């Protein structure tokens, strides 16, 4: 990948990346009640990393990832599928959502369910898929 030697883009990329990644997690978590969700969050995170990809060498983009995007893809798929299973243990159909309520001091009631796990799976799959494609295309350059 030929780098675009743009100082502005590179500097902005360095600042934007952590912000955007944080924002993507925010989108992921709030998705159940407000606009957002795993798919959108995943796209934001992927775009952030791709932005860096444009601004930097591939090596540094990979360093930002610190894992192979193909692994992210696989972990995401696994999470999504595993989240479908618990329902079966309660005699309910495959994919029936399970909810567990915790009382967290100072924050109040916290509801955690298998749908969150599924949404995280979607998030990771989106990141993994987009980055696998992008990195393959970028690397194939040479």
């Amino acid at each position: 990948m030929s780098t675009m030697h743009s100082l502005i883009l590179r500097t902005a990329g360095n600042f934007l990346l952590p912000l955007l990644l944080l924002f993507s997690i925010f989108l992921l978590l709030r998705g159940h009640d407000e606009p957002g969700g795993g798919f959108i969050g995943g796209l934001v995170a992927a775009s952030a990393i791709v932005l860096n990809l444009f601004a930097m060498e591939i090596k540094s983009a990979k360093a930002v990832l610190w894992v192979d995007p193909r692994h992210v893809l696989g972990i995401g798929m696994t999470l999504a599928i595993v989240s479908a299973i618990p329902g079966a243990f309660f005699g309910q159909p495959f994919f029936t959502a399970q909810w567990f309520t915790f009382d967290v001091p100072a924050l109040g009631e916290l509801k955690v369910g298998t749908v969150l796990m599924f949404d995280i799976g979607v998030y990771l799959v989106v990141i993994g898929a987009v980055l696998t494609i992008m990195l393959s295309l970028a690397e194939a350059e040479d």
Partner: protein
Amino acid sequence: MLLAVLSGFLLAAIAPWVHRLSGRHSGWVLAALPGALFIYFLSFIPEIADGGQVRFAYPWVPGLDIQLSFLVDGLSLLFVLLISGIGFFIVSYAGRYLEKHRDVGRFYVLILAFMGSMLGLVLADNLIALFVFWELTSITSYLLIGYNHEDARARYCALQGLIVTVGGGLALLAGFVMLAMAGGSYELSEVLAGEGLQEHAWYLPILLLVLAGAFTKSAQVPFHFWLPNAMAAPTPVSAYLHSATMVKAGVYLLARLNPGLGGTDEWLLILSLFGGVTMLTGVFLAARSTGVKQVLAYSTVMALGTLTMLIGVGTETAIIAAVTFLMAHSLYKGALFLIAGILDHEAGCKDFLQTGGLRSALPVTTFFAAIAALSLGGVIPMFGFIAKELMLEAVLEAPTVSGVLTALAVATAILGVLVAAIVGIKPWFGPRVKTPKDPHHEAPPAMLAGPAVLGSLGLLFGLAPMLPEWGVLGAAAGAVYGAPLDVKLSLWHGINAPLMISAASLLLGLALYTQWDRFRAAFAWLDGVANSIGPERQYDRTMAGLVWSADWQTRVLQNGYLRYYLLTILLMMLVSVGVTARIYDISIGELSFADIQIQEWTVLGMTLAAAAVAVTIRSRLGAVASLGALGFGVALIYVLFSAPDVGITQVLVETLTVLLLVLVLFRLPGFLNLSSPLVRVRDAVIALSVGGMMTLVMLSTLHMRAHDSISAYHVAESEPSGFGRNIVNVILVDFRALDTLGEIFVLALAAVGVYAMINLRAEDRK
């Protein structure tokens, strides 16, 4: 009962380890299962002999009303006894026969799995279950024929058998579904108990489809060619699958369906004529062959033809003859195949011309070969004699085409004696011929047990026909006939027409045997005919044609140009949606432009302008960028119509698409190759038609509504049962999570595809 049927599969799963633990005695160890099953099934005899039936049902796919039900009546009992009884000898025999083969474990897996499938096939009372077991026997047969998979010929033969039987199986499935619809149930016993199948409007299609399945499985002319080729399998397999059990599945099906579908003119004519012709063709080809297993295979074709013919004739005598013949044939043919294996194992002979005078070296084998061959030839006092007398009596009394059938039967009887003489005399008597291997000793007991017991039973049952008659044959004949029959088998019927025919055919057959070489020479020219127009040649042509048309179609459809793929997909969509719209008379409601707001007009105009730029601009980067602008316009429309989630997604996807396209653009060559004006006009027409069609479809979906919208449910249930206020996300991850799972699967596959396409090709180039 379920355990009895499935035990074959269960033992198959652990057979390789059992084999490893028990070493050379593994044959006996594993044969314990068929032996135990035989005893278990024997325990049904008292109940079945009184005309009873035992039915077992287990829920299988309750949602589709399919249950795993098994029915034990006379017919299935006869079959399960043959399958488990002969199975016992086959498995123990194979332990020694294949002792030196390197993967005997695989053989045990397959043969036990086959036994389980075959038991399931004859016991199943549910059409779907029967079909599943039917196909399982085809598949295990395929794997067993191709057991020596390093041999190209064995692979070819295995595939041929599979394609012929599975092709018929497809027709059978269609026939079963129609049968179930016509009979109102998937339970075979209920379908057959119902009245009026013979008068049903679908009777003929059902009959033809079922017959296609039965005839291919049971190697009737013109599908007989796969059976001799199936002899590429190890001999125990040929003895078990391709003579005693699997090939009789078609006959079993005909016998099973006889009470419901039989008795019509079509049934009588098709079955008896196809059966009769198969019978004569089989025995004639057997008499022309010299390969040990070929002769036996063709004589099996004869037996299958005889059975089909007898079921077609359908009179009381014919049905009794059919079940008697079925049992007699399984006994002597099983024995003869096992003896063929001994010939191969001890003397290395695969061809009758290599054999002769082996009686002094293998006296015990000779004795049992002789009594089995006597039964095959239908010589008094063997069980085969009783069967043959009954068969001749049945064709003489056949309600129609009796003359034709008698002529076929008499010719078959004469040639049958010739075949019996080839099998029973040629290898054993006469001058000693130098065989490829010098037989030093008799075969081991494990290999002699089968021929000895099966052959002796043929003699015992001939002398005491009341033994098989009680309990099994009588009840089986009754089950096939559809009403209880009074079966009285006896060796001596007095001097009558069948006896005269038997005596004459015996003399003529033996006379023919002395002239066997000249007989073969006289018909040698038939080889050329068979090679140029025979059914096997037609099979090869069909297969070649299939490959050719797949090749042609791949060349046309998979041409590798993205633009043509796109063109094909769009045109296909245009045509299919257009035709559907015409048929269902799609209408769009009245259009009104009055309540479109100014901001909506603005976004629309911007989007259209972006589209116009995208198609006219000559720079690639410009086109990509304007496509992105178009996408943002669409996203704005989503936001205007209060769908923020969809809007955000659209923006992000557009961004990524532009980035992706830019990455791809880097890889394109620097020059531009613009399409010609004509091509552009064509593309414009297609693009506008597809766009127009989509617009019409959108408008009509707003106007016409077949079902109530599900949105109300989603809106109402989102918070109470989904615990989320964002309905879109609750739908995505909860209500329709399975859809989402499918989508991320597609996404993941696409990524893997791109990765493989780019990286693996790069590796190839290195």
